[in-house]
Every structure is written in C-alpha cells, then in structure tokens.
C-alpha cells in the first residue's frame, strides 16, 4: 500500500471566552428584535467558544508531525486568542464593527486570520458556540482551488 495515497489531517482545539451582540444596522429595532431574539440584548452576552483548527500536509518523517503544535499554538494565540479571549467581539475586533458577529461570520474571520499559517495548509475552522451549536468554514471554492 502506498503511503502517499493516504491523506492525514491534524485537528487542534482552543477555547476563548468572548461577548457579542447580534444587531444589524440594516434592520429596524423591531426587526432586530424579531430576527435575533435575546441575542439582540443591547448589553450583549458571552460564550465559551471552542475553536477547532484543521490542517493538512505531509508528515515530516523526522518529527512524525504535520506541524509542530508549539508553532500552531503560538500562531493561533497571536492571531486569534490574544485579541478575542476575554474581549467583546463587537467592540474590540475591527472586522465586527460593520459585520454582525454571528458564529458563521466568526468562522470566516478566523479562517482568514489563520490561512497564512506557514507550516501546513489550513483545511477548515469549526467553532462551537455552545455544546449544541457549531459552524464550519473551509474557505470559498476559489481559495480552495488557488
């Protein structure tokens, strides 16, 4: 059996606690209330987000690794966790001044922040907002084919 025919991915989980408020300036107060329900509470609320980062690449025969976890941890800490953990997504993350910080949009923002990880290819990010809700983003088709 050829080793090359197998495709291995590495998944790593992180947690961060952040607050957000779902409110679209394009909707009226009443519509915001109807669409977002209690997530539209003007004072916001928070979650313990679980971020799952998935990478693919060749397993380095010297280390047995797709990527060294210390490098990945440092990259995710610098590009995501430092800015997101114990912060308000709406107030502290520039991308969410204009965009509603739903977990769908959070996946896209984090994917773009991590896609330049230099040691392996970012395959997808998956975020659990609560134990019952999770979202995934694997880049758009153009990015996948470039």
């Amino acid at each position, binding site marked *: *059996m050829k080793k090359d025919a197998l*495709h291995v*991915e*590495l998944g790593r989980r992180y947690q961060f606690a952040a607050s957000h408020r779902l409110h679209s300036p394009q909707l009226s107060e009443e519509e915001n209330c109807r669409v977002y329900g209690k997530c539209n509470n003007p004072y916001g609320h928070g979650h313990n987000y679980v971020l799952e980062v998935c990478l693919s690449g060749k*397993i380095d025969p010297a*280390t047995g690794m797709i990527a060294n976890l210390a490098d990945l941890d440092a990259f995710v800490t610098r590009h995501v966790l430092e800015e997101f953990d114990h912060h308000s997504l709406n107030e502290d993350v520039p991308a969410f001044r204009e965009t509603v910080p739903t977990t769908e949009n959070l996946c896209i923002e984090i994917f773009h922040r991590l896609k330049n990880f230099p040691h392996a290819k970012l395959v997808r990010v998956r975020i659990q907002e609560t134990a019952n809700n999770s979202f995934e983003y694997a880049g758009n088709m153009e990015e996948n084919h470039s």
Partner: protein
Amino acid sequence: MVLLTRKIEFSASHLYHNPNLSAEENRRIFGKCNNPHGHGHNYTLEVTVAGSPDPVTGMVLDLKELKEILEREVMQRMDHRHLNYEVPELAGQIPTCENIARVIWQLLEPRITQGKLHRVRLYESPELFADCYRNDASEVAN
C-alpha cells in the same frame, strides 16, 4: 451512501525521540514529549465506514464484526502498550497522533470487507486529533 462510526478507547504510553537528532534538538522540537521515561494518554478512536445499508439486514456492516476487527487489530496491539517499543507497525516512526492514525488506517482497511473505510479519527486528548482518509474520500468530504 451512509456513514457509520464506532468509537473505542485505549490507553498507551509513548515518547517522541528521533535518534538522528541531537539531545538538544530533540528537546527543542518535542518539548516535554521527549521525556525519556515516556508518558501516556487515553486515546479515543472513531472509525467511520461508508456504504449502503444491506436491503435484508438494514446494516452497512455488522457492528459485531467491526467490534471484533477493532479488538483484534487495535486493542490487542495498542491497549496498555508502549507504542515505541511494542507495536512493530510503528517501528522507526515517531508515534505522533498523525502516524498512529495512519498505521490504524493501514491495519483496518484490508479487514473491512463490507462497506469501505471512510475515516479514521484518533484523539490523543480532547484538544488534539488526527484524521486519516484515502485521498479520493477527503476530496469528496471537502
């Protein structure tokens, strides 16, 4: 096509050390995983098989048979073992999650005769896992 997943747990010890690197490089690259006395994990393995349910039994494959394959190929080889010294399939490789997942794929794939092995996911801890696919399966999944 339907995907069926069975989960098992096993406990094993390992250490990361590449004899071609200096002691200092081993420590720098592998950190505390380079401790010469090793350490251990409770591994969780999720094995996913793809197939069409048999019209007579309604099953993709007989779970009892899958359970026996996992017992024989994985549990007996790896449970309560030292992965560096007691698993010949891993000889010469650093027993990272990536390499163990790949070896488990190679052990299971020829044994699964009903349905087709779709994914092997191995958790070393709740925070770290590796997925192994055949290349065509991962393209379908993406």
